[in-house]
């Protein structure tokens, strides 16, 4: 069985132009496929949760994380990538 490997990318910080564009470009360039995306802005605070398929052989978790960490530093918003198993473990029986 070849189960899909998924990652959850959460983005939190002050709203500014191009956050979604930059995050999704990194995902695209690393051959990750966006499965679900939800985004809100509450009193100027930008919050986005993105679920991506990272099963592709060309997609490396570590490479993705390195690029997202660099972006996080550059645009001063918190960007985090985690394997989806942690959320599934905690919220599914």
């Amino acid at each position, binding site marked *: 069985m070849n189960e899909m490997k998924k990652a*959850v990318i*959460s983005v939190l910080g002050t709203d500014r132009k191009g956050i979604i564009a930059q995050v999704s470009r990194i995902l695209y360039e690393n051959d990750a496929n966006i*499965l*679900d995306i*939800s985004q809100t802005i509450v009193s100027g605070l930008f919050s986005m*949760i993105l*679920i991506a398929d990272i099963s592709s052989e060309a997609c490396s*978790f*570590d490479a993705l*994380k390195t690029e997202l960490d660099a972006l996080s530093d550059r645009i001063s918003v918190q960007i*985090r*990538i*985690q*394997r*989806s*198993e*942690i*959320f*599934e*473990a*905690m*919220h*599914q029986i």
Partner: protein
Amino acid sequence: MHMINTSEILETLQMIDHQKLDVRTITMGVSLFNCVTDDEKKLCNNVYDRITRQAERLVQVGRDIEREIGVPIVNKRISVTPAALITGAIKNPVKVAKALDDAAKATGVDFIGGYSALVHKAMTEADRRLIESIPEALSVTDFLCSSVNVGSTRAGINMDAVRLMGEAVKHTALATADNGGLGCAKLVVFCNAVEDNPFMAGAFYGPGEGDCAVSVGVSGPGVVKVALEKVKDAPFDEVAETIKRTAFQITRVGQLVAREASRRLGVPFGIVDLSLAPTPAVGDSVAAILEEMGLEVCGAHGTTAALALLNDAVKKGGVMASSHVGGLSGAFIPVSEDIGMIQAAQRGALSLEKLEAMTCVCSVGLDMIAIPGDTPAETIAAIIADEAAIGMVNNKTTAVRVIPAPGKVVGDNVEFGGLLGHAPVIPVRPFSAEPFIRRGGRIPAPLHSLRN
């Protein structure tokens, strides 16, 4: 399978960011039986090689899992076969203590446990040599932890060992006086010790275990505390349900980490230990959970009942979340490692007697308690005997990890640093138990040990 939703993701992120959700430890148990020889130097080399080879990737794998799931894994540790069981044919077990410590340094783990002896019924010569060497062993090593099992429900209490351990604790404090008696923070005296405990300082890898296994100890008192804030003034039924639900979630994280570590290291999965382990950080306190239930301060009347509920609900919630539960599995109440307990002790709300009562209903026992430096060895032995009696009669693990801080008196503060925290020195009873301890022999096993 349903797609995880945003609110569930945010809940988990909150737990990690603000409620100190973490996995306390991945502990690799390594059997040392195949190292045995009567050649001292060869034994040490065998031990060092065996551990460094088996645990070579432990720290790296721990870091990898931490990075990928985004939950801190605070410690990586090794537990080994009780050293007394492999040093029977050599003269000086301290040599092995150093080899263990060197192996810990080479693998980069935070602690190595198993400078231990199991003497609940009687002592071999090797057991005695090891016990007598503990003060030296803990003063010439940095990461080594030691534990001795002096009693069990099945065997009773070995009062000769209790007396020796009173002296061992006292001498360890003196041998490590430059560091406030820090050696005693790495020395546990057990009754009913378990063979698969991943938590320090009491971890060893029992003789009933296999060649190697990885176990995980969870944490997360902060998460339980915040969950209880949402059921203020609700009856206890609801409190218990809330704790169970939260414990389930925390334990699932532990199970995930254990399964991943087992797979990546190619080593069998041992157990998940359901213990709620506090740290000295704000928001990571077991005492704060008890206070959230409606107590002015931990130590107030009602504390034992609150802890009993907490301990039971943690187990009920956790047990379904893991395929194998073991270790100590319960709430820990180490005084110096819990900011709420430290504050309660400073306020005078927490006495040794109240702590003793609390150990009847929770995991383990009198833990990380600083007592006056001039406390006689016999009084420490008597404290150990009392605690062992609680464990023996109630069929549970109990332990004593007290620090008779050299030169310190009641009210002074002792600093251990890091996860070990700091503690105010609290009073012990000034009355002598010296003739009681001098008797020696064995306290017979209780009637209910005959269960066959």
